[in-house]
């Protein structure tokens, strides 16, 4: 995949005088020229508000916007583009379900099942809705190898269970979530299943019809696309039943002073001027990934992740926080380095041109569960090369030196 790097202008940058080794793709990915140019081209040639216009620019913008919807829908194997709602990102997508479905349908005593490895985006909205409705949160814990422990699952699958929401891949440990098992469990009691796919859709071939969940939430900026846009895929019957969370223009067929009629899906969930340029960029990102092929992306990440795991295993004092088996994990690698605080690790690596994250990664419940205050995290994508890993490993040795661990 090395040849793809030329498409990513930022990768030519020097950081602190060093070659940039960008290992923070779980936070956000870099963008190829194809995406950046699609956005510029939109603003330079056919920028207009959508749906409401009878002029040429409005028509072109609408066609591009709806065309992007079709591309993204096809990318995840949706049977119809109506099932694909553009949102502002994964966080917005999950909040949309929480307010649109949860707030209107949950009652005291109803239960929402999460796992302790969820990102705050898949925890806090449910806390808010639980407070508003009297529903309760229930959590699955983890096994010793950082996977969701299903041994307690049966004890929480009963008629009180209304919603299960689980991450497709942890943004801390890289572990895949047990989506298939949870879908099966949900079916037994008629609960709906939401997949926080922020980390899975960008890295794994995805076929929503095969997954069998009711909702999938993901963000463009984590899959080569622009910031400011994401998607919520929902099963048609469920979307049709779900109430809109936000109200405003474009999502109605009629508005009277005291009541309104909603537009058909997906528009009833898209209140206000949508992120039009961002949809165009999202479409271009999906085109790019389609061209590379998602199984190639996964293959590359398996290779680079295995290489990273092997090289990190040779760094003294380093403890991996995540599964070692490449078959159950993606290219997000968290670790601790002796008593060097992750923040210090990140500063030292940054001096070497290596960009990693340090902290709680918006997963404080997981950090508490694992009893680690913070981790350093390196995360990969299709443009990551072994040289990036080598540069990081060299930086880790330097950190050990500075902190006198050698």
């Amino acid at each position, binding site marked *: 995949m090395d040849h793809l790097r030329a498409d990513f202008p930022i990768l030519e940058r020097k950081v602190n005088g060093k070659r940039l080794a960008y290992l923070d793709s779980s936070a956000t990915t870099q963008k190829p020229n194809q995406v950046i140019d699609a956005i510029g081209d939109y603003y330079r040639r056919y920028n207009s508000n959508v749906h409401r216009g009878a002029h040429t620019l409005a028509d072109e913008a609408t066609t591009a916007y709806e065309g992007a919807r079709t591309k993204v829908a096809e990318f995840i194997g949706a049977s119809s583009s109506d099932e694909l709602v553009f949102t502002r990102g994964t966080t917005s997508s999950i909040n949309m379900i929480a307010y649109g479905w949860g707030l209107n349908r949950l009652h005291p005593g109803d239960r929402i099942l999460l796992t302790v490895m969820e990102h705050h985006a898949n925890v806090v909205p449910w806390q808010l809705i639980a407070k508003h409705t009297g529903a309760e949160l229930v959590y699955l814990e983890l096994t010793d190898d950082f996977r969701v422990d299903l041994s307690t699952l049966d004890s929480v699958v009963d008629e009180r269970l209304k919603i299960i929401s689980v991450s497709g891949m942890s943004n801390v440990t890289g572990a895949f979530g047990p989506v298939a098992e949870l879908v099966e469990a949900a079916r037994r009691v008629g609960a709906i299943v939401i997949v926080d796919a922020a980390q899975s859709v960008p890295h794994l071939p995805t076929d929503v019809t095969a997954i069998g969940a009711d909702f999938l939430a993901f963000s463009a900026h984590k899959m080569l696309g622009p910031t400011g846009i994401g998607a919520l895929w929902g099963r048609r019957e469920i979307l049709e039943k779900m109430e809109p969370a936000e109200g405003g223009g474009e999502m109605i067929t009629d508005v009277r002073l005291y009541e309104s009629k909603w537009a058909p899906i997906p528009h009833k969930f898209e209140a206000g001027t949508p992120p039009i340029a961002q949809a165009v960029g999202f479409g271009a990102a999906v085109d790019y990934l389609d061209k590379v092929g998602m199984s190639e992306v996964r293959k590359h990440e398996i290779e680079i992740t295995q290489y990273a795991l092997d090289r990190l295993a040779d760094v003294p004092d380093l403890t991996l926080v995540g599964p070692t088996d490449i078959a159950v994990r993606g290219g997000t690698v968290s670790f601790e380095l002796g008593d060097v605080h992750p923040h210090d690790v990140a500063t030292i690596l940054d001096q070497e041109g290596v960009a990693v994250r340090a902290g709680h990664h918006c997963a404080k419940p997981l950090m508490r569960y694992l009893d680690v205050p*913070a981790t350093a995290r390196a995360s990969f994508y299709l443009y990551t090369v072994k040289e990036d890993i080598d540069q990081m490993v060299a930086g880790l040795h*330097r950190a050990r030196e500075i902190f006198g661990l050698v």
Partner: protein
Amino acid sequence: MALEELYREVILDHYRNPRHKGSLTHAHFHAEGQNPSCGDEFSLDLVIEDGVLVEVATQGQGCSISQASGSMMADAIKGKTVDEVKAITSKFKLMMSIEEGENPVDPARPGAVLGDLEALQGVRKFPVRIKCADLPWATLADALDGAQTAS
């Protein structure tokens, strides 16, 4: 090189062996600080008698810079009057250029003005880390505000 200036030995020493670590169970003023962007935490217990910080206890969790800054701060303020502590805080903030004004540290006489704390000067070259160094001091300001309100 900048990294060596940042991670001076004395900083690593305070990081690994924080002074005045613990908490107070008797009458005291308490404050807690947190840096939401990185998760670093620092908490402070003070006993103030006749305007003097007679006892200081700290607890924290976080990077070497925040924790060393807290340990050095505890050393520097213990036994000082509230006014002296305010003067130290002000000098510290000038040194870190968190406040506008001239750096009070005298390069000719290392340690003469702010003692061990002067080792934190290297942080100035790492602007993102200044908030780490500042966390204990923001917590201190909260605790002193509490003391003032109480008296």
